[in-house]
């Protein structure tokens, strides 16, 4: 079935694009141009994605060239270059003469696109807000940040751009923190004579953010610390127990009224027990350092200091104001040809 007949039912921009491509492949070039122009028309433009728009312009330029309308083909390709300077035609789909024309248009079109995060936050005086520019051709540009009233906040770049360029803004207004509000990154593409060919307006919504500092972690409670020196209690208890048990060994027969008949070995055993108590006393003598407890306390304090240092570092970072920057869709304004 001819594409033209089927197209009567086409409603959406995507459908128009598909019929246009199909008509192009069937060499129904007039119909293809019609479908593609309708797909790109203002009423339907919003219905195409960026990739679909690029595809529509590619086929439109090719169809126009095959219809021997070189100017129209050039205009379509220029729109494509302005839309995406990095775009390249598919060499499998399009013949060499189409590719050649597109490359000629791209090299002669002075335009850039700006790519940046949609929403980012930078720490002032530490981070930078970066915007990458992609150029269609080698040319001179001027880039600056302007205020909402059009006055220049900060010039960023004035020079040549090749394939791409990274612009950095430290977020400051000179050395001061900028006021919150709307700004625009303005990139002017210049002709060899110095005239402005195109201007890319890249809207920036700036918000100054000041974070609250974190509270310092409390020092370990006294109850968490272990005694680092032996208290008197255990040592005295040990000594008392040793003497008591030693005395009990000696006195055991006397409890039965047989002290004089009992073995003298009880004195040796009693003395050994008392000696054990004495050794225990000196082992736990009052004031003697307790290495395990000292290490445990040092570990406790060390862990607290680590947490404190972390908070102090975090607070030092939080003292620096931050800039939240949200970007809008860039708009390219054409002033001169090409």
């Amino acid at each position, binding site marked *: 079935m001819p594409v033209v007949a089927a197209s009567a039912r086409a409603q959406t921009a995507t459908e128009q694009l598909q019929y246009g491509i199909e008509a192009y492949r069937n060499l129904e070039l007039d119909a293809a141009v019609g479908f593609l122009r309708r797909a790109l028309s203002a009423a339907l433009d919003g219905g195409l994605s960026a990739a679909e728009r690029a595809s529509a312009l590619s086929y439109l330029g090719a169809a126009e060239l095959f219809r021997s309308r070189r100017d129209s083909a050039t205009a379509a390709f220029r729109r494509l270059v302005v839309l995406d300077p990095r775009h390249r035609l598919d060499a499998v789909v399009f013949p060499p003469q189409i590719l050649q024309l597109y490359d000629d248009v791209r090299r002669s079109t002075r335009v850039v696109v700006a790519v940046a995060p949609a929403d980012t936050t930078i720490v002032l005086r530490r981070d930078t807000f970066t915007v990458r520019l992609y150029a269609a051709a080698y040319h001179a540009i001027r880039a600056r940040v302007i205020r909402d009233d059009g006055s220049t906040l900060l010039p960023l770049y004035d020079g040549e751009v090749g394939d791409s360029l990274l612009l950095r803004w430290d977020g400051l207004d000179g050395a001061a923190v900028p006021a919150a509000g709307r700004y625009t990154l303005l990139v002017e593409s210049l002709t060899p004579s110095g005239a402005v060919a195109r201007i890319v307006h890249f809207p920036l919504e700036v918000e100054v953010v000041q974070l609250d500092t974190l509270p310092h972690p409390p020092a370990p409670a006294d109850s968490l610390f272990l005694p680092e020196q032996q208290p008197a209690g255990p040592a005295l208890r040990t000594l008392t127990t040793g003497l008591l048990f030693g005395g009990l060994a000696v006195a055991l027969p006397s409890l039965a009224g*047989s002290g004089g008949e009992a073995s003298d*070995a009880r004195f040796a*055993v009693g003395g050994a027990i008392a000696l054990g108590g004495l050794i*225990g006393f000196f082992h736990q003598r009052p004031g003697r350092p307790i290495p395990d407890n000292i290490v445990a306390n040092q570990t406790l304090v060390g862990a607290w200091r680590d947490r404190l240092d972390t908070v102090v570092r975090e607070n030092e970072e939080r003292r620096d104001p931050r800039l939240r920057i949200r970007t809008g869709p860039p708009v390219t304004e054409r002033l001169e040809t090409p």
Partner: protein
Amino acid sequence: MSRRLATVAAALAVLALAATDAAGQAAVRFAAGATATQYRVRSTTGDDTETLGAPGFGAEGVIAVWRIALEGRYVQAGLEPGATATATLARDAVEGHLLLAVRATPWLSVSTGPLARSYETTLGSQRWLLWTVRARGTPVLVPDAVRGYAELWGALPVDIDVPESWNSGWGGDVGLVLAVPRLPLWLRLSYRFEQYRLGDGTRRETIDGATLSIGAGRLQ
């Protein structure tokens, strides 16, 4: 009899060493050891006193689960009369006890169980079967190394081959236990004293002496 005793002691020691590795820090513990004791017996009836003594040897062991322990000890000695007691017959003494113990606190346990003792002479034998109730304290003297050891107990007769009626009986064992650092070995030195009164108290049977035990495993 000595060969049998040595075999039992050696077997218990090997078993204790093996159990120490197997049980590790588990709730089950096992210990066994050999005992050498100064076995002194003094029997007084009115003004007459018989004194006998000799070294005694034996074995002991304990197996415990959580706070419950089963403890046993066996000692034998060939008692000879003292130098002043010329009319006294030599006798072989064999004694043993089996106790069921409950550890109330880390340093205090109570136990109960039978105590059996037999004296063999050329004229016949005399057997004592008693039931004992004991309390034992083992406070720490030197952490991880030395514990004190004191056990006091009272006895009730079950079967005694003596003509006199039972009056009273009690005993005590006081000493210290040394744990060998980094090895599952222990050493205990203690002095024991037992006294039984029979009839109206005119007959007294007293046993005392120092005891040295060495063993393997975890006593506590």
